[in-house]
């Protein structure tokens, strides 16, 4: 069948009436109910970002409390039970409730604009993801404040986390919190994949996609294949605890190591899921602030994809101390060292781009430079730890704590703060204060290194992680005090950053649509963007869509303005294919999320919650999908 193709012709710019029509079509309904039923990618993205930053701050406070406790030997500021809850909720919040959701939020906010479309492919699914995430995060923190927070670490190994050694409901809270947050990540990832593959502006073939979009695509695919593992394993743990299955009960033929395998099959890719979007932000910032194209675009893309694949082949290096067969351990050592290669390639490309460009040392670039320093240091200790003999020495010591904070704060938080500084004017229409930004960067960078560098030494001197105190004779006191001082310095830096975000929203200098001379289509929208993003849907003819825009660059016309319609393009070359109508604002995702909430919170207490929640969810789903008027394009023969 020969399908109709897009017809070239000339048009006049859209008039005010057309813009008003677009605005009516894409903006959310008025009032509080309208706010609850919003499905616009920018609203949902911002909600993810703001919520996860609140959780980031809360988990940061827990970190400070832990540092106060460890500041001197024999300290009685916190007891062992409270300390266990603290490090568990700190780790779980940072990993599940902050890092993954904040990256998801930024992706949801930016990707549709970067690829020149008006919303994600599945706006309601994304809204559902946000509400489940919110319920899960609040659930974790409410239980923690009620003193029934989880206390077996962010990975909750059995047998410690099993029914025998962790009676009560704390671990059940943890495993259901995982379900909530992973549902949210999976929903977001599926929506991102479909959006990126099917809604790119005409001309934006895969090899012209911005690197941030590539990073989001790779991370989303990793979510799809990694998150099911943690959903499965926490479900098995919950079943062991709730209905007496024996997945991890050694006495009845189960296996505690099976838990570790399944957990780390998720847990290692998780690290990359968190920082690959960060790498995308770094590429965006370096491109614009070096004022040149990135050097080695193809190498960068291949590195991201290679990291995505290799990330699934090294989970066992978290289990070197469990007595696995040596041959298997050697394989995972090799794989763990191999993954340093694509990361190294990207670092070299960034440095080359900076050297070959004319860098502007503004605050976003400073965060990125901080990232390069810290991340390289964390990567190097990662290469150490990939080696079995060193890992056996350093396992479960502060050396590991130092390593993963270098990787995660370096790889996630620094790029994130750089990215927030860079895109803040797009979302708010105002610039952040450069002076406050400088101070917050300096304090955070110095504070970070003063906190975590001494931990390498503490670890090598034998200080184990997850102890609530230590004896004076160990000699660990001074370095711990230094680390605590560093933590408070870093906290002041982060506080200044937040202050800057809040203050500049009202008092910052007006930014205009494109304050940095940006390369991507997101800078072709207004600041803050209108609900429909683009008055005229763009086309691109090369990478860096805005920089390479022709004087007479064609626009797309013929996409309906009176209803929420998107252009669908072909997967590889982004040629126009067809148009599709999106569902509008609705409360259905919220109801479904509440039904999900009843199910999984109920499952902490009784297996019957699955039945009740299943029925509720069924009702919500039917209500969601059942066709409601007004109807259009009726099929010719109606029943």
């Amino acid at each position, binding site marked *: 069948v020969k*399908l109709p193709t*897009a*017809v*070239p*012709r*000339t*048009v006049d*710019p859209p008039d005010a009436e057309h813009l008003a029509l677009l605005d009516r079509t894409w903006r959310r309904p008025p009032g509080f109910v309208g706010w609850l039923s919003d499905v616009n990618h920018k609203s949902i993205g911002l909600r993810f970002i703001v919520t996860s930053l609140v959780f980031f701050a809360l988990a940061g406070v827990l970190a400070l409390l832990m540092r106060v406790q460890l500041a001197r030997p024999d300290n009685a500021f916190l007891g062992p039970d409270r300390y266990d809850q603290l490090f568990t909720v700190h780790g779980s919040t940072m990993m599940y409730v902050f890092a993954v959701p904040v990256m998801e939020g930024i992706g949801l906010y930016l990707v549709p604009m970067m690829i020149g479309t008006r919303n994600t*492919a*599945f706006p309601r699914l994304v809204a559902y993801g946000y509400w489940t995430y919110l319920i899960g995060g609040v659930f974790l923190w409410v239980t923690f404040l009620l003193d029934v927070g989880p206390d077996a670490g962010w990975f909750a190994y059995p047998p410690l986390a099993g029914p025998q050694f962790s009676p009560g409901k704390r671990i059940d809270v943890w495993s259901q919190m995982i379900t909530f947050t992973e549902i949210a990540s999976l929903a977001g*990832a*599926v929506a991102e*994949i*479909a959006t990126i*593959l*099917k809604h790119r502006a*005409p001309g934006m073939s895969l090899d012209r996609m911005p690197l941030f979009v590539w990073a989001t695509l790779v991370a989303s695919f990793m979510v*799809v294949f990694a*998150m*099911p*593992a943690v*959903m*499965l394993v926490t479900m*098995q743990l919950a*079943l062991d605890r709730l*209905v*007496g*299955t*024996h*997945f991890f*009960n050694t006495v*009845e*033929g*189960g*296996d505690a190591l*099976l838990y570790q395998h*399944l957990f780390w*099959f998720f847990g290692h890719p998780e690290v990359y899921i968190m920082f690959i979007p960060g790498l995308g932000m770094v590429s965006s910032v370096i491109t614009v602030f070096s004022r040149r194209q990135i050097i080695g675009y193809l190498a960068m893309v291949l590195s991201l994809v290679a990291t995505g694949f290799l990330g699934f082949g090294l989970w066992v290096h978290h289990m070197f101390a469990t007595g696995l067969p040596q041959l298997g351990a050697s394989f995972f050592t090799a794989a763990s060292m191999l993954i340093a290669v694509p990361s190294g390639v990207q670092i070299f490309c960034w440095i080359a781009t900076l050297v070959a460009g004319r860098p502007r040392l503004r605050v976003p670039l400073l965060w990125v430079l901080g990232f390069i320093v810290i991340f390289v240091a964390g990567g190097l200790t990662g290469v150490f730890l990939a080696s079995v003999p060193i890992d056996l020495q350093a396992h479960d010591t502060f050396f590991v704590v130092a390593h993963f904070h270098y990787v995660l704060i370096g790889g996630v938080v620094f790029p994130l703060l750089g990215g927030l500084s860079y895109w803040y004017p797009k979302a708010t229409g105002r610039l952040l204060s450069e002076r406050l930004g400088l101070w917050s960067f300096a304090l955070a960078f110095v504070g970070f290194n003063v906190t975590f560098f001494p931990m390498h030494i503490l670890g090598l001197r034998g200080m184990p992680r997850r102890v609530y105190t230590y004896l004076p004779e160990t000699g660990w006191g001074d370095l711990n005090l230094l680390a605590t001082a560093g933590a408070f310095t870093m906290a002041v830096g982060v506080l200044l950053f937040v202050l800057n975000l809040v203050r500049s929203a009202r008092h910052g200098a007006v930014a205009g649509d494109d304050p940095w001379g940006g390369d991507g289509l997101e800078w072709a929208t207004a600041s803050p963007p209108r609900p429909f993003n683009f008055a005229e849907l763009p*086309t691109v003819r090369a990478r860096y869509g805005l920089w390479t825009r022709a004087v*007479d660059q*064609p626009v*797309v016309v*013929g*996409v309906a303005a009176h209803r929420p319609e998107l252009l*669908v393009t072909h*997967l590889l070359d982004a040629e*126009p*294919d*067809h148009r*599709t109508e999106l569902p509008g604002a609705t409360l259905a995702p919220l109801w479904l999320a509440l039904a999900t909430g009843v199910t999984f919170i109920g499952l902490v207490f009784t297996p019957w919650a699955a039945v009740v929640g299943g029925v509720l969810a069924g009702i919500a789903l039917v209500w969601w*999908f*059942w*066709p409601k008027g007004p*109807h*259009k*394009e009726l*099929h*010719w*023969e109606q*029943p």
Partner: protein
Amino acid sequence: MSTRTRPALDVSELPEIAFGHRDPLWWGVAGLIAIESTMVVLLVASFVYLRGNYHEWPPTGFGVPVQLLALAEALVLAASAFSTPRTNLAALDGDLRRIQRWLAVTTALGAVFCGLRGSMFAILPFHWDLHAYASVVWGLLGLNFLHALSGTLENAAVLGVALRGPFEKKHLVDVHSSGFLWYFVVWSWLPVYALVFLLSRFIRSGG
């Protein structure tokens, strides 16, 4: 914003629906299938992994009635692998009558399958809390039951729209997508069935 007349790409003549990988919804369903397939594969991996903890495998037999039920289930599911492509072809042709007919067949087969699975749960000679093998077998049966139940409910809902209307053009794509999802239900179970009910004792212990 420019005030000039400029070249434009007019897409108003392009169709409003497309099937298969051209359709964004197809990618959504593909993502869901990838997620659920990963769950199944990892649960099968758990099954094989736990083999290493036993001398005798399987430690407990199913007995003839359960084996017969499992075979009947597999046959019903295999039969639905013949009705599903007919539904999908009808959707591509836009033939509502054929959609109604074949989708009703698939939905009915799905309902029968779920009923058979329900009876199997009732007569299985062991409960999930007997030992780890029992847990993982119940896990595999339960996960697949959830897949089959949700697939059947989805088929039933789409069938409801096809029978009662109003049937919009875009619902043709929904028919096609729910067929895609049902293929997953079929093909994620048949190999697991073969492994658990027929080939289990041929899995060798690693150690």
